C-alpha cells in the first residue's frame, strides 16, 4: 500500500513550515543587523535596503565584542582540552579496565550523571565566595575551572558511550605485549575513537561558549565572555537594534559553524550516548 501523493506533499509542507519557523527569526536578526537605525525601527518591515556595517563596527570595536570573542575562545579551548584529558582515562577505566556492568563502573557513571543534573544555582554562591577569596573572580581563571568541571562530565559520558562497545580483545592483547594501561589507552584505543574526541571537544566548546550564569557572576570588566558582553549591551543600549543584533550575529556565528561541522555526532553527544 503506497501512501498517497497528497499525503506526502502535506507531510513535506509541515516539515518545511517547521524549518521556516526555526530559521526565520534568525534571518530577521541578521537582516536587522545590516539595517540603518531608521529602517530597524520601522513598524513596517523594510525588505529592500543597502546593507550597513556600522552596527558591526560599533559592536566589535566600541562594544568590546572583539575582546570578548578572544576571552570566550580561550576559556572554551582550555576547558575543552582539560575536560578531555580528565574525562577520557575515567571513561576508559569504567568501560575497558572494569567491565561496564561492574558495580564500581555503574556507581561512577551514576555519580557523573547526577553531577550533570545538579542545577548551577546550588554551586553558584559557593564558587563565587571561594573564588572571590582566592582572587579568581573578575578574571577567567575561576570560570575556566568551572567550565572544565562540566567539560569533564561531558567527556566521561560521551567517551563511555563510544568505548562501551569497543572490543575488549584490543586491550587484552596490548597488556600481554607489555604495554601499560596509559600506553594502551593512547596507542591502541584512542586512535579508534577520534570521532568521539572530536565530538566531545566541539560540544564542550559550544557548551562553554553559550554558558551564561557562571560567566555573569565570575567574570567582570576585561574578562567578560561573549554572552555576558551581549547581555551588557541589552542593559546599556536598550533597543539600539543595529549594534545589538550585530553583536548577537558575531557571537553566535562560531557555535553555529561548529554545530554544522559536527552534526554527524550531535545526537549521540547530546544524549550522552543515549542513542547511537
Amino acid at each position, binding site marked *: 500500500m503506497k501512501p498517497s501523493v497528497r499525503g506526502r506533499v502535506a507531510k513535506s509542507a509541515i516539515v518545511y513550515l*517547521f524549518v521556516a519557523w526555526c530559521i526565520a527569526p534568525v534571518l530577521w*536578526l541578521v537582516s536587522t543587523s545590516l539595517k540603518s537605525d531608521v529602517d530597524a525601527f520601522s513598524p513596517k518591515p523594510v525588505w529592500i535596503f543597502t546593507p550597513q556595517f556600522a552596527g558591526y563596527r560599533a559592536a566589535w570595536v566600541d562594544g568590546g565584542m572583539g575582546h570578548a570573542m578572544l576571552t570566550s575562545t580561550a576559556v572554551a579551548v582550555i576547558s575543552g582540552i582539560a575536560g578531555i584529558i580528565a574525562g577520557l582515562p575515567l571513561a576508559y577505566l569504567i568501560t575497558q579496565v572494569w567491565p561496564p556492568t561492574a558495580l564500581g563502573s555503574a556507581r561512577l557513571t551514576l555519580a557523573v*550523571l547526577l553531577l550533570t543534573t545538579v542545577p548551577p544555582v546550588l554551586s553558584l554562591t559557593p564558587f563565587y565566595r571561594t573564588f572571590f577569596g582566592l582572587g579568581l573572580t573578575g578574571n577567567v581563571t575561576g570560570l575556566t575551572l568551572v567550565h572544565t568541571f562540566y567539560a569533564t562530565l561531558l567527556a566521561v559520558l560521551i567517551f563511555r558511550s563510544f568505548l562501551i562497545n569497543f572490543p575488549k580483545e584490543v586491550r587484552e592483547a596490548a597488556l600481554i605485549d607489555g604495554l601499560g594501561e596509559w600506553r594502551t589507552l593512547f596507542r591502541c584505543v584512542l586512535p579508534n575513537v577520534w570521532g568521539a574526541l572530536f565530538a566531545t571537544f566541539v560540544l564542550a566548546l559550544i557548551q562553554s561558549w553559550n554558558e551564561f550564569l557562571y560567566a555573569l557572576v565570575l567574570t567582570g570588566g576585561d574578562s567578560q565572555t561573549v554572552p555576558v558582553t551581549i547581555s551588557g549591551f541589552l542593559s546599556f543600549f536598550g533597543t539600539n537594534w543595529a549594534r545589538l543584533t550585530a553583536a548577537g550575529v558575531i557571537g553566535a556565528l562560531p557555535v553555529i559553524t561548529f554545530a554544522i561541522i559536527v552534526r554527524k555526532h550531535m545526537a549521540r553527544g547530546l544524549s550522552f550516548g543515549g542513542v547511537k
Partner: protein
Amino acid sequence: MPRSGRRNTRALLARASLLAPAALVILPLLAIIVVQGAQLVTHNENLLRPGSADQYIGFANVTRAFSDPTLFNSLRVTLTYVIVGVSLEMVIGVSIAILLNQRIPGKGLLRALILIPMVLTPVVAGLMWRLMLDPTSGFINYLLGAVGLGADHAFLSDPTTALPVVILAEVWQNTPFVIIVVLAALESLDPSPFEAAQLDGAVGWRLTRHVTLPMLAPVLSIVLMLRVIDSVKTFAIINAMTKGGPGTSTLAISNYVYQVGFQTFDIGYATTIGLLVSLAMLILLVPGATKLMGLQIRKARR
C-alpha cells in the same frame, strides 16, 4: 607470591592513576560546594554587610524559604515553564522527527538548518525574540496587524503574556534537540517490525502508534529526562528577555537565586534556595537516572 603481589599493586596503581585526573578536577569543586554551601546555608551572610559572614543563624534561612511568597511564585513559574515548554517540545519534536524520517526532498539541508536554534547562544536567542516581539518594530506585531489582530502588543511588559512568550522562545530553541536525538534513534531502529506491521496492513497513524512509539520508548524517556533537567536550569533566555519581570511573572528559580544573591547580595539565603531546589530535583530525578543507567547496562550485556 611476592612477584604477583607486586604486579597487583602495580595494576592497582595504574587504575588509580586513570581515575586521578578526573578526581583532580571534580573533587575540589565538589568540596567547595559542600563546605562553603554548609557555611552559607547556616549563616546570615550579606556581601554588603561586613561581619555578616560570621553570623550563625542555624536553620533560619530554611524557615525563611518556607514562608517566602516570591520563592513559591518562582516555583510556580518554573513548573509552568518546564511542563508546558517540555510537553510542546516533545510533541512537536517527535512528530517532526517521524515526518523527517520519511522521504522528504532536501532532507540533508533541512537537518542542518534545524540545528541552528539549538546551538544559538541562549542570550542571543532571548535578544532575538525581544526584537521579534518589539511593540513598535517587531515582526510578530506586523504579522498580527496584517491579519487584523492589532499591531501594538507589548508582550514582554504585560504580565499575562510575558510567561507564554518566554516559553515560546524556550520551545523555539529546544524542540530541535528532541528532533535530532529522536531522528537518530529512528534511523537506528530495526526495520523488520515495520515491515511485518506493514504486511499486516498497518499504515500511517496506526503504524506510528502501535509500532514506532513503543520501539522509541527508551529513547523518549532519556530525551524527556534530559529536557526536564535542562529546562529547570533555565536562566539566560529569561534574563535576556524579561529579567524575570514584569513584577515577578517570569522569575524562574535561577533568576530568583541570581537576584537574591547578586543584586541584593543576600548570598546566605540565595544558597539556601539553591540547596532546597536541588534537593527536590535530586529526589525526583534519582529514580529516573538510575533507570537510565539500568537501560544502558542491559544494552551492554546484550
